[in-house]
């Protein structure tokens, strides 16, 4: 059996583990565009912030690839797939044939066309180790940094560099920060906190044009900067599948076994869609755990053990300067605000299920208990919701359920 | 007459030597062999007591009870004889012949009576003859001062005294008596007033016991057996063992073999492993007669009309050997004490703890001797 994986990503790593559980002998080839073996992209901001180092970052030790007999081809991009011949061609013209192919190409920064952007020489995206290293090299205590995009990437970047630079301005078209995970009030809390830390926000606004060191806003205001970080958004890397007619929907469409619409080709991670049970829709869940799980599902299905991904949800934990945010699911249905001065907390329930939550600050403790309610679609009438709503706790479950959860004597 | 207290007023732990000699064919022989055997074990005695029991020695009076009595003085004798007269028909009475010798001193008056219960008195007592006689014996021994009936069986007799057993034998001229069964006891009291009545064998009716050992269950056994009309006046192991044997054999009509299974009962662990029938029986006996279990070291030879039984405590904490030669069976504390009278034995056995060795007269012999 010949397995080929395109994209040295987390999904790739977990796929390799899953494949090797079933198939000890088949050949595994891992092709990666970057020069680094799989690592977790969200770590790059922590590296800049000093919570970890680029050395510690690789997701698996070199030994892992040796032990699992994986052929690593790094720094080379796959340029084409021949679905008939079942081959993959690299930019160096090398051709690899596969029996099972996994696309784990992730996503890339999306930079919209902006007037005069080409005049800016010190501009960076913030996604890969390389981009982070490049940025790190340029910033000085005098640098005035302008970040376009108040999303996860942009703000994590801010956290990473704030104490290394003179100032940070953040511009976003959206009226609030972290629009993808926070509601208005939540966003306000975080924004206030970040402003206290010294970050300046320009929201509901966007850059009309650039000169070398100045950005002019639609609102008319001007922001002078030394370094520009572009963190507007990301796009899934779907070209390879697109080229051979695979179905797309902002990402590569996959079923619950991570199969694409093309035989023997699987997709996992940020480049692929999965079925979000909280809103019953196919969507790209560009999140670390999701990539990890999809990789595993794909890997086992590729190597002959049928596995289904039937509890996909969006679930995210992120923090800025020690202020922690946990969010999950969809913000639909009935909204329950249980916030306190020290902690923000809203729960979303929809026909007897918890479908979404936003927790900020000290309300996040044991929040996995909530996440589990969402992921496992636990019927709220089967437990004491009033109690569990106050704080996540197992006490709220029926004794029998709890006993089996905590492991009853066989 | 005695400055130290009488036997029975204090309890006396003792060591001892015992021998038993028996002819299965009922051949009657003198006491010399018994004397010879016991004298070899002189260092097991200390001169403070010795005695013999002989069976088949009074063939001419075998239908009468032969009472052997010690009297401290004439008044005691007078009182006792008056008493006997009122309950028994005395057909013969005489001094028991003895030999004057320096080794034996302080002899009391020693008399022998052949008698049978007065029919009228027996009838009004509503008791069987044996019970009637045994009660009278116990009554006299416990109530009449200065009297001691130390032998009360039919066609048998006990001879005992303070002294070394071989001397006691000669003192009583045992060479003149002929019996088919002899037991002898040499005593080693560790502290004693050494009273004649306290010497062994101890007997009631025809059941006599010689014993070597010191039992730890004494008071449990005594307090139990005394519920049934016995009175342990001597406070000796031998006495209480004799009473228990009498009770179980005569009153509960248990054969000697089963009597032994009560006195030296098998361990529960052994009983639990037995087949149901035996297990049920032994469980029943151990439970119902639990207070008759004898613990602590003992080896006894029980004499009775027509047989002998040798028995060890269940741990066999005392030596006891049985040898056979032709129709003769020898039992003794020491093998040497058997070899000295029967050098060539057909067989020799060492009875296991708690397992009785019983020998009885063969059929023809029973006709002539009993």
């Amino acid at each position, binding site marked *: 059996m010949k397995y080929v994986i395109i994209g040295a990503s987390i999904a790739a790593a977990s796929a390799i583990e899953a494949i090797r559980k079933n198939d000890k002998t088949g050949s595994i080839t891992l092709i990666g565009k970057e020069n680094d073996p799989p690592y977790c992209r969200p770590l790059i901001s922590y590296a800049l912030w000093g919570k970890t180092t680029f050395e510690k970052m690789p997701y698996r030790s070199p030994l892992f690839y040796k032990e699992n007999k994986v052929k690593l081809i790094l720094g080379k991009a796959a340029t084409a797939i021949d679905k008939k011949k079942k081959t993959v061609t690299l930019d160096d013209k090398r051709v690899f044939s596969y029996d099972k192919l996994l696309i784990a190409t992730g996503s890339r920064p999306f930079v919209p066309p902006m007037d005069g952007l080409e005049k800016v020489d010190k501009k960076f995206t913030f996604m890969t180790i390389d981009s982070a290293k490049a940025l790190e090299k340029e910033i000085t205590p005098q640098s005035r940094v302008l970040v376009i995009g108040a999303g996860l990437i942009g703000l994590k970047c801010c956290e990473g560099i704030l104490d290394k630079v003179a100032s940070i301005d953040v511009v976003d078209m959206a009226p609030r920060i972290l629009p993808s995970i926070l509601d208005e009030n939540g966003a306000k809390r975080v924004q206030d906190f970040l402003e206290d830390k010294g970050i300046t926000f320009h929201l509901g606004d966007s850059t009309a044009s650039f000169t070398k060191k100045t950005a002019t806003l639609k609102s008319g205001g001007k922001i002078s900067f030394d370094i520009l970080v572009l963190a507007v958004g990301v796009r899934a890397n779907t070209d390879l599948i697109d080229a051979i007619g695979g179905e797309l929907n902002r990402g590569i469409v996959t079923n619950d076994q991570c199969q694409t619409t093309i035989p023997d080709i699987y997709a996992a991670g940020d480049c692929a869609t999965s079925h979000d049970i909280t809103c019953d829709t196919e969507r790209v869940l560009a999140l670390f*755990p999701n990539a990890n799980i999809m990789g595993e599902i794909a890997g086992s299905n590729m190597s002959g053990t049928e596995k289904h991904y039937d509890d996909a949800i969006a679930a995210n934990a992120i923090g800025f300067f020690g202020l922690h945010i946990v969010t999950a699911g969809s913000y639909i249905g009935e909204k329950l605000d249980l916030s306190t001065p020290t902690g923000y907390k809203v729960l979303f329930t929809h026909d007897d299920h918890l479908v979404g939550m936003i927790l900020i600050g000290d309300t996040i403790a044991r929040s996995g208990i909530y996440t589990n309610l969402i992921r496992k679609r636990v019927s709220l009438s089967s437990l004491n919701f009033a109690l569990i709503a106050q704080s996540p706790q197992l006490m709220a479950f029926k004794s029998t359920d709890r006993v089996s959860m905590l492991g009853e004597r066989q | 007459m005695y400055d130290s207290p009488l036997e029975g007023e204090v309890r006396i732990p003792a060591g001892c030597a015992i021998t038993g000699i028996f002819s299965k064919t009922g051949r009657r022989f003198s006491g010399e062999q018994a004397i010879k055997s016991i004298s070899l074990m002189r260092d097991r005695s200390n001169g403070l007591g010795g005695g013999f029991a002989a069976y088949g020695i009074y063939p001419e009076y075998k239908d009468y009870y032969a009472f052997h009595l010690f009297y401290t003085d004439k008044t005691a004798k007078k009182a006792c004889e008056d008493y006997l007269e009122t309950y028994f028909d005395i057909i013969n009475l005489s001094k028991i012949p003895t030999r004057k010798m320096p080794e034996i001193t302080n002899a009391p008056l020693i008399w022998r009576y052949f008698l049978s219960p007065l029919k009228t008195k027996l009838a009004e007592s509503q008791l069987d003859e044996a019970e009637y006689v045994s009660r009278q014996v116990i009554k006299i021994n416990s109530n009449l001062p200065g009297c001691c009936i130390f032998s009360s069986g039919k066609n048998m007799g006990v001879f005992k005294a303070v002294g070394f057993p071989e001397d006691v034998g000669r003192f009583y001229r045992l060479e003149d008596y002929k019996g088919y069964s002899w037991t002898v006891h040499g005593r080693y009291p560790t502290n004693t007033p050494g009273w004649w009545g306290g010497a062994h064998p101890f007997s009631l009716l025809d059941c006599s016991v010689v014993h070597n050992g010191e039992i730890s269950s004494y008071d449990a056994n005594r307090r139990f057996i005394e519920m049934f009309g016995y009175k342990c006046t001597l406070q000796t192991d031998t006495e209480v063992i004799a009473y228990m044997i009498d009770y179980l054999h005569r009153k509960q009509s248990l054969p000697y073999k089963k009597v032994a299974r009560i006195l030296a009962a098998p361990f529960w662990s052994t009983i639990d492993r037995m087949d149901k029938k035996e297990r049920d029986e032994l469980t029943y006996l151990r439970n119902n007669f639990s207070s008759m279990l004898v613990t602590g070291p003992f080896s006894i030879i029980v004499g009775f009309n027509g047989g002998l039984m040798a028995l060890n405590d269940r741990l066999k904490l005392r030596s006891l050997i049985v040898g056979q030669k032709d129709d003769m069976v020898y039992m003794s504390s020491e093998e040497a004490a058997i070899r000295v009278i029967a050098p060539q034995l057909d067989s020799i056995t060492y009875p296991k703890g708690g397992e009785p060795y019983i020998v009885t007269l063969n059929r023809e012999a029973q006709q002539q001797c009993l």
Partner: protein
Amino acid sequence: MKRVYVEENWCLACHLCEYWCALSNSPLDNMVKLKNKDIRPRIQVEEGKDINFAVSCRHCTDPICVKSCISGALTINNGLIQIDQSKCVGCYTCIMACPYGALMPNEEGVMQKCELCTSNGTEPSCVQHCPNNAIKYEER
């Protein structure tokens, strides 16, 4: 694999397990030295009206915390889920993921969890010191 289980009928909510956990996972050699410290035990008692029980890591066979760990600090080694605190970046994704709420940050904001006292070389301290055998360490 032997795991820690709680018998809720016998848990008295005395909270001694928490103190012994805190002590055993600290460099301290005597309970008295916990005086004036706010303890951060890896086992936590939930107290109800007439039901109490202590919760610590279940050491799931298919642990979602490990799958969610972005730094690779959480690993599963023959059933035992361990954390390499030097790798942890404190992103709290494991807190978001654990269905039992069995992970929590230590004083430095680095994650900690029950590792069955494997580092202390004895039976789990909470089990040893439960006064009512409400916490068991056994195969199930």
